[in-house]
């Protein structure tokens, strides 16, 4: 018998250890119940993040009827911006002395530069011209962008101050908001610059443009003066502790576990809780507010919505900003759970984004509640497939289900199949 394992644990295992296992003092690392619970928790945690990303895909598809391939890159940007801002604010788990303003990667400076330069430019050149006239749509957009950039910079500074004051958890929240604001601005800009001119172009062109933007964001992020090609370790911005341990067994309270228990971590609870709060807020926004009604109207018929006096451009921009902010939140939470940040063009990121898209399709694309359901389902499918079937085929399960759903019920679970009319 292996002496490290000690005597048999007091609690009966299920399934009971076989004779040879008992003879060697060997116990499986998980019993059936614990393995199931752990898989369920992992699946739900990652599934809720998929759902957050899927919401952005589904909202854009619902309104503009194209797949925003760049959405997964906004998610990656959200993770990296929160890393950059965290370094700026003084968080660095590995080397606290190295964190600070000097260590802040370039993109944080872009935030300030963007905000400051456009503000100055507006004051010097713009204001005199605008005197006595109502602001044009583009001027208003510019003003909004500048205000937004300043808000980002403010949140980054707030995070720095809070971290200095020892309120690191609140500082983490400020970084989350900063990342969301930044990505919202990026989403807004992308829509205005690249997608708006193509509003009436064939859908294939918009799709190709989206792929182009995706490639652009990935490869810009890889440049040395941006985030670089080395993977980085995300500092922990949220508190983590083991809240509860379910099951498991060990010979005495201070001995090693012979059967690992299911650990409910505070980080997982916060991540899933934030995701759920954001999703509830979005649901509330879409179904119970004026702008939400406008979004649904534009999604139903852009032309008729315009005839009813709905500012279609503004609603579309708002949708992009909203989707990008949710993706950024997902990026932040993902980076907190899986702390190794790969380079922006890493296939891991792309696959994550694609799986979130699969979630949107499975739930019924264009349907907001469908995206939430699809995200959870895909997360569960992935983790249960890995735990109970062949682990290497992780991606095959997801894409297999996608093809199956598309063939059997192309509208998705909650979606409706519309017949195309002439």
């Amino acid at each position, binding site marked *: 018998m292996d002496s490290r394992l000690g005597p048999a644990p007091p609690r009966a295992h299920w399934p009971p250890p076989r004779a040879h296992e008992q003879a060697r003092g060997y116990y499986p690392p998980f019993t059936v119940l614990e393995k199931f619970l752990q898989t369920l928790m992992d699946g739900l945690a990652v599934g809720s993040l998929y759902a957050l990303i899927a919401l952005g895909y589904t909202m854009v598809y619902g309104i503009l009827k194209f797949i925003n391939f760049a959405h997964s890159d906004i998610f990656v940007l959200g993770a990296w911006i929160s890393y950059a801002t965290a370094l700026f604010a003084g968080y660095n788990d590995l080397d606290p002395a190295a964190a600070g303003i000097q260590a802040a990667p370039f993109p944080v400076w872009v935030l300030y530069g963007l905000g400051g330069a456009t503000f100055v430019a507006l004051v010097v050149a713009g204001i005199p011209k605008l005197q006595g006239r109502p602001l044009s749509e583009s001027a208003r957009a510019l003003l909004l962008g500048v205000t937004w950039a300043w808000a980002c910079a403010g949140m980054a500074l707030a995070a720095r101050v809070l971290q200095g004051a020892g309120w690191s958890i609140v500082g983490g929240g400020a970084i989350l908001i900063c990342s969301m604001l930044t990505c919202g601005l990026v989403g807004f800009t992308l829509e205005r610059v690249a997608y708006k001119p193509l509003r009436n172009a064939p859908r294939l062109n918009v799709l190709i*443009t989206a792929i182009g933007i995706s490639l652009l964001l990935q490869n810009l992020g890889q440049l040395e003066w941006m985030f670089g090609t080395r993977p980085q370790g995300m500092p922990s911005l949220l508190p983590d502790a083991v809240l509860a341990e379910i099951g498991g067994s060990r010979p005495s309270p201070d001995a090693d576990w012979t059967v690992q228990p299911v650990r409910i971590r505070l980080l997982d609870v916060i991540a899933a809780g934030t995701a759920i709060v954001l999703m509830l807020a979005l649901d509330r926004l879409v179904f119970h507010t004026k702008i939400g009604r406008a979004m649904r109207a534009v999604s139903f018929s852009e032309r008729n919505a315009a005839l009813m006096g709905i500012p279609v451009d503004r609603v579309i921009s708002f949708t992009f900003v909203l989707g990008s902010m949710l993706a950024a939140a997902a990026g932040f939470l993902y980076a907190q759970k899986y702390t190794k940040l790969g380079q922006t063009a890493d296939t891991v990121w792309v696959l994550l984004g694609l799986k979130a898209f699969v979630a949107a399709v499975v739930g019924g694309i264009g349907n907001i509640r469908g995206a939430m359901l699809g995200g959870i389902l895909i997360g569960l499918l992935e983790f249960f497939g890995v735990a109970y079937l062949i682990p290497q085929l992780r*991606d095959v399960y997801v894409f297999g289900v996608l093809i199956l759903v598309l063939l059997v019920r192309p509208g998705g679970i909650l979606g409706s199949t519309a017949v195309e009319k002439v």
Partner: protein
Amino acid sequence: MAWSLSSRASQLGPPAAWSLVRGVLPFLACVAVAILAQVILKPFLITTLGWDFAAKMIVDVGINIVLAVSLTLVNGFTGQFSIGHAAFMAVGGYTAAAIVYYGSYRIAGNPDLAGGVLSSMLVGREAPWFTPHDLLFLVAMLAGGVVAALCGYLVGLPSLRLKGDYLAIVTLGFGEIVRVLIQSQTGDVLYDPEEIAQTPAWKLAGSLGGSLGFSGLPFYTSFFWVYLLVLVTLLLAWRIKNSSYGRALISIREDEIASEAMGVDTTRFKIRAFVLSAFLAGCAGALFAHTVGVQLNAAELGFVKSFDIIIMVVLGGLGSISGAVIAAIILTILPEALRGVAEYRMVAYAVALIVMMLVRPKGLLGVHEVWERAAWDWLLGASKRKGAGR
């Protein structure tokens, strides 16, 4: 409604014998030109020291031309959006690699290059014009194409129900599934002649190297094979574009509903386009697998490779054969020229793609060929005239 092309051709066309000659002769000419390319280029570019850099570029350009033109059949002519083209390449490449590698073992007991003059890029070696190994390589290439075509049929089937973005996602999902399966579900490459002789064929088919890649392949790819495939591909694409078959494909691109109303069996034509495109991509994959300096690995044939091919097709012009060729040439040579600023290369590509879509949504040449006046009207400033430009 059934589409019978042959009956009309036999009623109106020239005598059968002449049309047979006219049909086959260009293919024979392709073979002749490819032989010339091999015989003329090889002494210049291959020395005892190895390959000249230009030789490698010429081969890569050829393979990319085949990939771009074959994708043009689906994305350009038929208007379906496939973003899993590299998967067909992977399927064809791995099939051909298994046949060549294990076939060589079965025939000669080793995997060494034993091709004739046409498929050998070695110098100072007396070889006949044609050996049984060349036949093995040809069979392997065609088999790779056929297996890829079967996959193309499978991927084309969902186009019964799916359109546009959805089909794109299915092709993407298919590509990922192929990649993951090859990487995780195949065993190590065998290299012991005894072991290979005793292993049944179905087991050999599963020994493709897994995530390490298929190593130890003989380098059969030569100017002859590459440019034979290039010329045949161009000939096929050109003939399709200028036939009623191709017009049926183009009508699907322009308006699927109208096309169906005019009696085009859209599903069948879409599947055919997929099958042919996949076949050519599979053959190109076979050539890619046996190129000098290439380690066949499914990890490199993921969606990044697919996007590379798409960029060639889109920049050249969706529906333009010569555009795809030009874009393939430029985008193969450009990265080498931009080696000094390699990290900005992809950024520049992405910007070029976006700007192209905003400024000239149909690509550089649109649906026209490079020698047609309409392709240049936009450049010469005639695009403001009504009806010109596009």
